[in-house]
C-alpha cells in the first residue's frame, strides 16, 4: 500500500515547519505548499508570512526534510475575498477578523481544493488546535497549549474538511514545538511568532486605512449616548468598539467607543458601563457537528485570546442565531467572530458565526 499523502501549508514559521516534520516522521508522503497572497510590492516586504524571505525559509526547511515545496499564487483570490471583506467591513463600521476569513476562503477552501486535486489525503497546517473522532463525528478541540490555542479562527470548519485536516502541532505547547524544530535542525526554530495582520505593513494600521480604504477616512462627528456632539473623528475605519485611545476627547472620565454608525458616519462613545453587551445576533452560523437545540448552553468567545462567556443559544432562521449572555460582557464589535464552545466540555469548539449586532446590557435591563 502506498503512503498516505499530505499537503502541509507552510508559512516559513516554526509551527508549520514542525507540522511538516511531524508528518514526514509519521510516514506520510508530504508536499510543502506556501501561498503567495499579495501582489507586487507587499510580497517583497518582511511583514508576516508570504514574502520572499519567508518562502526561502520554508523552502530550506522543505529541503532539510527532503520534501517537494511549491509556492501557489492565490493573490487574486485573496484580494477578491479576504481583502475586499476587510475593507467593506471597516467601511460599514464592523471589526473584521481577516485570519478567520483567510481560513474560511483561502486555506480550507482554495488551498484545500488544490491539495485534494494534487492527490492529498489530508491538508495540514500549523494551527494550535486538535481534531478528534468521537461518536461518529469529527470534533475540534482547543490546542493543548491554551496560550497558543487557535481554535477560535477555525470555527467555520465542516465535517468534510475536518475529515481531511490535520493540526500536527496542536498536541504540543509552543516550547515543545521549538524544541522539536531545534532537534531537527530546522532553521525556523527560533523565529518569532507573527502577531499582526499579515497584509498590513509593519502594523501601521492608520497608514493602511489611508492607502486602501479612502471610503472609511471621511471625518465625521463623535457623539455621546444621547447624541450630543463631543468632537470630530478621523474616519470610521480607524475606530473599533471598545477603543479608548486616540479619540481626542477629554471628559474627565475614561471614554470608549461603544458604536459605529457607518450610514450616518458617526462614532458613538460612552463610559465603560456602556460597553456592556447582553445579547449578540449572529450570521453565517455554522456548526462542526450537530446543531445545538434552542436554548442550549454554550460558551462564547469573541476574541482570539479572550475568555469564553456562558450564554444560551437560540437559532433564528437559516444561518442566523441569537446568543443571550448569562452575565454581560464588554466590548463586543459587530464583524468579529463568535466561536462557540461546548458548555459541558469547554475544550470543544462546536461552531460559530459572525456578529451582526449587539444589544447593550443597559438597554435590555
Amino acid at each position: 500500500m502506498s503512503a498516505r499523502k499530505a499537503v502541509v501549508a507552510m508559512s516559513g514559521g516554526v509551527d508549520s515547519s514542525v507540522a511538516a516534520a511531524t508528518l514526514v516522521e509519521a510516514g506520510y508522503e508530504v508536499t510543502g505548499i506556501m501561498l503567495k497572497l499579495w501582489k507586487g510590492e507587499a510580497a517583497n516586504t518582511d511583514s508576516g508570512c508570504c514574502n520572499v524571505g519567508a518562502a526561502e525559509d520554508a523552502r530550506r526547511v522543505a529541503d532539510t526534510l527532503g520534501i517537494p515545496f511549491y509556492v501557489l499564487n492565490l493573490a487574486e483570490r485573496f484580494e477578491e475575498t479576504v481583502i475586499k471583506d476587510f475593507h467593506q467591513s471597516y467601511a460599514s463600521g464592523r471589526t473584521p477578523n481577516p485570519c478567520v476569513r483567510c481560513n474560511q476562503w483561502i486555506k480550507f477552501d482554495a488551498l484545500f481544493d488544490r491539495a485534494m486535486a494534487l492527490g492529498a489525503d489530508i491538508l495540514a497546517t500549523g494551527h494550535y488546535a486538535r481534531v478528534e473522532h468521537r461518536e461518529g463525528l469529527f470534533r475540534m478541540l482547543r490546542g493543548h497549549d491554551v496560550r497558543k490555542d487557535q481554535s477560535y479562527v477555525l470555527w467555520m470548519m465542516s465535517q468534510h474538511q475536518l475529515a481531511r485536516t490535520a493540526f500536527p502541532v496542536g498536541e504540543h505547547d509552543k516550547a515543545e514545538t521549538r524544541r522539536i524544530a531545534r532537534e531537527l535542525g530546522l532553521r525556523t526554530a527560533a523565529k518569532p511568532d507573527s502577531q499582526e495582520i499579515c497584509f498590513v505593513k509593519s502594523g501601521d494600521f492608520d497608514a493602511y486605512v489611508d492607502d486602501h480604504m479612502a471610503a472609511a477616512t471621511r471625518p465625521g462627528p463623535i457623539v455621546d449616548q444621547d447624541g450630543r456632539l463631543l468632537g470630530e473623528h478621523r474616519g470610521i475605519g480607524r475606530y473599533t468598539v471598545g477603543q479608548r485611545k486616540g479619540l481626542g476627547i477629554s471628559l474627565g472620565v475614561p471614554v470608549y467607543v461603544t458604536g459605529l454608525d457607518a450610514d450616518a458616519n458617526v462614532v458613538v462613545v460612552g463610559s465603560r458601563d456602556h460597553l456592556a453587551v447582553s445579547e449578540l445576533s449572529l450570521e453565517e452560523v455554522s456548526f462542526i457537528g450537530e446543531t445545538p437545540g434552542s436554548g442550549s448552553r454554550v460558551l462564547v468567545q469573541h476574541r482570539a485570546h479572550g475568555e469564553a462567556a456562558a450564554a444560551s443559544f437560540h437559532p433564528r432562521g437559516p444561518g442566523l442565531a441569537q446568543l443571550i449572555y448569562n452575565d454581560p460582557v464588554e466590548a463586543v464589535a459587530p464583524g468579529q467572530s463568535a466561536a462557540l464552545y461546548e458548555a459541558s466540555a469547554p475544550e470543544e469548539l462546536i461552531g460559530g458565526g459572525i456578529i451582526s449586532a449587539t444589544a447593550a446590557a443597559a438597554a435590555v435591563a
Partner: protein
Amino acid sequence: MHYLDHAATTPVLPEVKDAMLPFLEDDFGNPSSVHAAGRRAKQGVEDARDRIANAVDAHPAEIVFTGGGTDADNLALKGSAYKLRGNGNHIVTTAFEHHGVLGPLEWLGSQGFDVTTIQVGSSGVVDPGEIAGATGKATVLVSVMTVNNEIGTIQPIAEIVQAVKQANPNSLVHTDAVQALGNIPVNLHAWGVDLAAFAAHKVGGPKGVGALFVRSGVALESVTHGGGQERGLRSGTLNVPGIAGFGVAAEIAAKEVDEKQDRLRTMRARLLEGIKDSIPDVVVNGDLERRVAGNLNVCIPHAEGQIMLLLLDQAGIACSSGSACASGAMDPSHVLLAIGVAKALARGSLRFSLGRASTDEDVEAVLAVLPDVVAQARRVAA
C-alpha cells in the same frame, strides 16, 4: 524525468563541459595577467569570442562578455540610453519583452526617460510599421526581442530595423536574442541590429555567462565600472570556464540549428495533435507557424496552470506556466495578457519547450499523463 522546459534552461552539453574543465584545473589563470597562466586563460576567452562571433554573424570585436542575458540587456539599454541622452530621451519597446528588458526600461523610465510600449496582437508577432510609427526624432533606442521566451514567436527583426532606421537613422535597435540562438539562424549583420543579448545556458552552455553584441561603431556607457575589462564596457574578472563553454555551445547551436528545427517541428506537431485529441478545447497561444520549432504554449480552459504544473512535476514531467516570481510562485503571464489572452484563460497556460536532447518518448510521456492531469486540475473550482 522528461524535461520539456528548454526555454528555461538546458543541460550543459558534454562537449561544453570538456571545454570548460581545463580552465577549472590547469589553466586557471586570470586572463588579465601577463604571465603564461594568464595568457592561456586569455586565449581561451578569445577563442570563445571567435566562435560566438562566427555563430551569430558578427566580428569578434563586437562581442562583449557579460554575466548572462539580463546583464547583457542591462548594459545594452542603460548603456545606450545614457550615452545618447543628448539626442533625446525616448525609448520604444513592446509589451511582451522579457523581464530582463522590461526591468531596466522601467528603471530608465524612473530616471526621466520616456518609454513607449507597443502592444502586440494575438499572433504574438510585432508589426514593424507600429514600431516605426512610434519612433520619432527624440527616439534614441528601440528594443524588440528576436524570439519571445514564452510563446516562441519569431519577430521580423530585419524589417523592424529597416523601418526604425527610416523613421530615425540615429536611433539604435537592441534585440534580446536569448531565445533565438540555437532555435533559428542568427545573422546579426544581415539583420542590421546595433545591439543583441545572448545567454549561454539556453544553448547547452553554463549559467551565469552571456554576451552582448555591440555593432562596430556603436558607443555605450558602461554600467559596471572597475578594472576596465571588455573594453571598459563590463568590468570584472572574466568567467573563463563559463566563456570557454559558451564558445563551444554557441558553435554547436549554430551548426545544428537547421537539423534541430526540422526534428523538433515534427515532435511538436505530434505533441499538439495528441493534446488536441484528449483536450479538444485547448487553445494555442500566438501564431503556431511563425515560432521556434520547439515551443508549444497552450491554454487549457477551466484548469489552473500552477496545479497542472505541480501534477506534471509529480509525474516526472518538467514544463512551465507563466513566469516564476521571486518567491517561486507562478504569476499570471504578462506575455499572454499582452497578446490579448483573457485573464481567466491565461491562468491555464502551459509551455512545453523541446530542445536538443528531447525525444519522442518525452512527448509520449506528456500525452500519457496530460488527460488525467487536466481532469484533476479541473476539479478545482475557479
